[in-house]
């Protein structure tokens, strides 16, 4: 089965942008989308998700809180949190749950490190 990325952002536009960047880096990967934390968790429960890219700034549960919950259920899943807000606390919280920090704007270059690393981990894990 193809590697599947879950993209979580309350903005449809942002989801498209992230999707394009990922497609440029890994053309044969599949993309799934969610607009908020509940949808994301529901989709994850269905299975088949290999890695997740989460926007930090969402109404309701923010991306870091969601990352912590996902990490609890999926100890080895590569998780990235996207934000323009580069504060030390945010960085520290991301590190604490083993999530990679990806700064906005989301471009190929911005995602490359995470995607390469995730690909590596997934390959190594198999």
């Amino acid at each position, binding site marked *: 089965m193809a590697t599947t990325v879950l993209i979580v952002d309350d903005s449809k536009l942002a989801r498209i942008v992230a999707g394009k960047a990922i497609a440029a880096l890994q053309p044969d990967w599949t993309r799934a989308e969610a607009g908020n934390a509940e949808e994301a968790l529901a989709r994850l429960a269905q299975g088949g998700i290999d890695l997740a890219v989460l926007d930090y700034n969402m109404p309701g549960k923010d991306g870091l809180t969601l990352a912590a919950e996902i990490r609890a259920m999926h100890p080895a899943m590569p998780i990235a949190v996207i934000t323009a807000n580069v504060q030390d606390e945010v960085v520290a919280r991301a590190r604490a749950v083993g999530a990679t920090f990806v700064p906005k704007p989301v471009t190929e270059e911005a995602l*490359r490190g995470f995607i*390469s*690393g995730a*690909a*590596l981990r997934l390959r190594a894990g198999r």
Partner: protein
Amino acid sequence: MSVRLDGDAIRLDGPARVEDAEPLLALLHEGPGRTVDLDGAGPLHAAVVQVLLALRPPVRGTPADPFDARWLLPLLGPGS
């Protein structure tokens, strides 16, 4: 980047990324005396640098990135 064999030398072309470490390692294992040519190499990822540090193959050429040329190359040379 591509890691390819050119005669008995291993050529690194373009920026070296994390996924290039594995192929480089494989090529070095298969031919332990092979020289690694860095002339066409872009900025080296730590994973690639690591392989070169661990195995210490003969290295030739100068990477295009000035930081790599000035600071990494001396560490990869013989007897560093």
